[in-house]
């Protein structure tokens, strides 16, 4: 291994990246773009459920009182009042509303008579997850209203209500339960994976395509020198993207950073090394740029998006899929990032994730060099 050669290759690669607007945009533009899209666009919080109301018993003060509970809740947004089912049908079909509340004509009458008053709830079930959450919101409003009714009734009969169980949540790490805090660290992992694997996957394939590799192979340059030389500039870019990502998380999205920056740098370097080596490995296998970029998105982007716990919780997945997630390195990195951003955890609590990242980095790097050596002769 010779430093002069590594330096020559790294320098050449730097110049090529600098002169290629495509890889420059991919390496520096994509991170900012993705953070903006995911940070602002992808909110897992469901509030302001668009609701349409048909109060058939509008003359009663009771029903108006009942509806105030929805009107002043941040979870509902009443988009319209109506007086027929056609309108409800139309608005739910067209997506203007996803929930309809229909209060029957004798709602107040039933209540006053001490009977159960039915409330019709029409929900757009095409998005099952949101529909379930919306229904639960309605249930909790109704439950709260029932408790009010009950205590009022007891008081009117001269009985003071007895103490009941009251849940008092105290949320750790993400007090406001802001989903951005949860998503942004995942986006950083995704960015590093994309930029590293996708961009490096092109860097060897390009040399095969253009015929420059043949000339290189006829020189005394060795496989590790070539791999490390190509590795360096992309490592710098990846690290730069990490810094941009952390700064945006802190100052644009207001995500706290409670961990240790040195640990972050160390863990990120491991993840980067693995991702870059994977890109180089793909590039050696593929030989053409098109094939390489497709292989790279298939093996890095998609698993990182779907199987890393970035958006979809791993514990909800079927056991077989959960088993696969152990082979997705972003899974470990995302846990580490969330730990560092939100929980102030140190290496003590994440040494097993760190170990997996270390293994990933070492294995991928070795594979890349091995594969390259084989390919060369």
């Amino acid at each position: 291994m010779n430093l002069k050669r590594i330096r020559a290759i790294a320098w050449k690669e730097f110049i090529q990246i600098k002169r290629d607007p495509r890889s420059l945009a991919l390496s520096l533009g994509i991170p900012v773009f993705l953070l903006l899209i995911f940070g602002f666009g992808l909110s897992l919080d469901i509030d302001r459920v668009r609701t349409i109301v048909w109060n058939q018993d509008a003359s009663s003060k009771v029903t108006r009182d009942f509806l105030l509970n929805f009107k002043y809740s941040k979870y509902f947004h009443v988009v319209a009042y109506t007086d027929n089912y056609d309108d409800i049908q139309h608005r739910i079909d067209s997506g203007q509303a996803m929930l309809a509340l229909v209060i029957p004509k004798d709602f107040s009458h039933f209540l006053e008579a001490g009977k159960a008053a039915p409330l019709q709830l029409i929900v757009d079930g095409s998005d099952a997850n949101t529909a379930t959450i919306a229904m639960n919101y309605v249930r909790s409003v109704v439950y709260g209203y029932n408790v009010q009714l009950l205590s009022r009734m007891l008081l009117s009969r001269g009985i003071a209500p007895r103490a009941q169980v009251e849940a008092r949540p105290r949320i750790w790490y993400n007090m406001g339960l802001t989903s951005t805090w949860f998503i942004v660290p995942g986006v950083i992992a995704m960015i590093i994976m994309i930029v590293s694997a996708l961009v490096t996957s092109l860097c060897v394939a390009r040399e095969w395509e253009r015929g420059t590799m043949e000339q290189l192979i006829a020189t005394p340059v060795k496989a590790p020198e070539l791999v490390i030389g190509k590795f360096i500039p992309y490592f710098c870019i990846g690290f730069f993207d990490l810094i941009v990502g952390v700064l945006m998380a802190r100052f644009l999205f207001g995500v706290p950073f409670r961990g240790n920056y040195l640990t972050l740098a160390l863990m990120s370097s491991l993840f980067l090394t693995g991702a870059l080596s994977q890109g180089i490995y793909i590039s050696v296998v593929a030989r053409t740029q098109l094939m390489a970029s497709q292989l790279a998105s298939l093996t890095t982007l998609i698993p990182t998006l779907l199987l890393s716990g970035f958006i979809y919780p791993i514990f909800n997945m079927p056991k077989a899929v959960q088993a696969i997630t152990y082979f997705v390195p972003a899974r470990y990195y995302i846990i580490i990032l969330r730990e560092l951003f939100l929980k102030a955890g140190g290496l003590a609590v994440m040494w097993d994730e760190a170990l997996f990242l270390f293994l990933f980095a070492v294995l991928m790097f070795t594979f890349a060099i091995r594969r390259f050596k084989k390919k060369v002769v």
Partner: protein
Amino acid sequence: MNNAPEIAVSVRELEKRFGDFTAVNKVTFDVRQGEIFGFLGPNGAGKSTTIRMLCGIYAPTSGSGTVGGFDIIREQNLIKEHIGYMSQKFSLYDDLTVEENIDFYSGIYKIPAQERQARKEEVIRLANLEDFRHRPTKIISGGWKQRLALGCALIHHPQMLFLDEPTSGVDPITRANFWAIIKDLAGKGVTIFVTTHYMDEAENCNRMVLIYHGTIIAMGTPEEMKTKFMKSDVVEIVLAEAQNWIDDLGRLDVIKEAALFGSNIHAVVYEAEKAIPAITAYLSGRGAEVGEIRKIMPSLEDVFVSAIENYDKAHEKS
């Protein structure tokens, strides 16, 4: 001090197969130090495959060989330190400038820092690119690129230079220029191994082999090639208004093939001694103004065509 071997390249029964296809079929040859050795043959004959095996780009399927005294199977890395290689396709970096390309190869060949500037100037002078040193390589034209590639292949002052079709797609003046540089290098003791399918370029070589379908079918100096491997003779006929006689001559029994060569006719014949009297008799009998009819040395192109035809005939029978 100079204990380098007399033989620069030595190859025995070297073979390369790609699946069922035999690209190079057990070739054996030696290249002497300091000579220009031509590796000739039509496209697809196995020239590039052979040169790639010698330069450590391909591993041979079987056979053995040495380059500069190093084994081509076990000591590829040592070979690579001592040779320069220029591939068929332009293979420098298009998006780098002329100087950046040179700097890159300086680094790859570990040229000491204090020598770098001098070597760089040497390459730029050789390629005649003084005015283009800061231009991206993609904008300079074919011939210049070729010479820049040659310069980069020479930056570490190799004792052997392997050139794969160095002049393909280059204009005649640049080609002549290129050969002048190659001869100059050979004069300085650099062994040159060059492949080409331009038969006229073969005259520049000290020795050569002709490879066809992966098999060597002729080998020797240009003179040996012309005497040993030519089964027919070539007769030059000098006569007035040659163009009017060419078709008639072509139909004569003693003549295999006749073609205009400038204002004269070159006829390929089975045996000059019998053909010359027959042609003379035929022409004077019809009142042609015959100047001279004589046996001449065939060109290398004649030799190659004849050798390839003989090979094809031999393989049709079997």
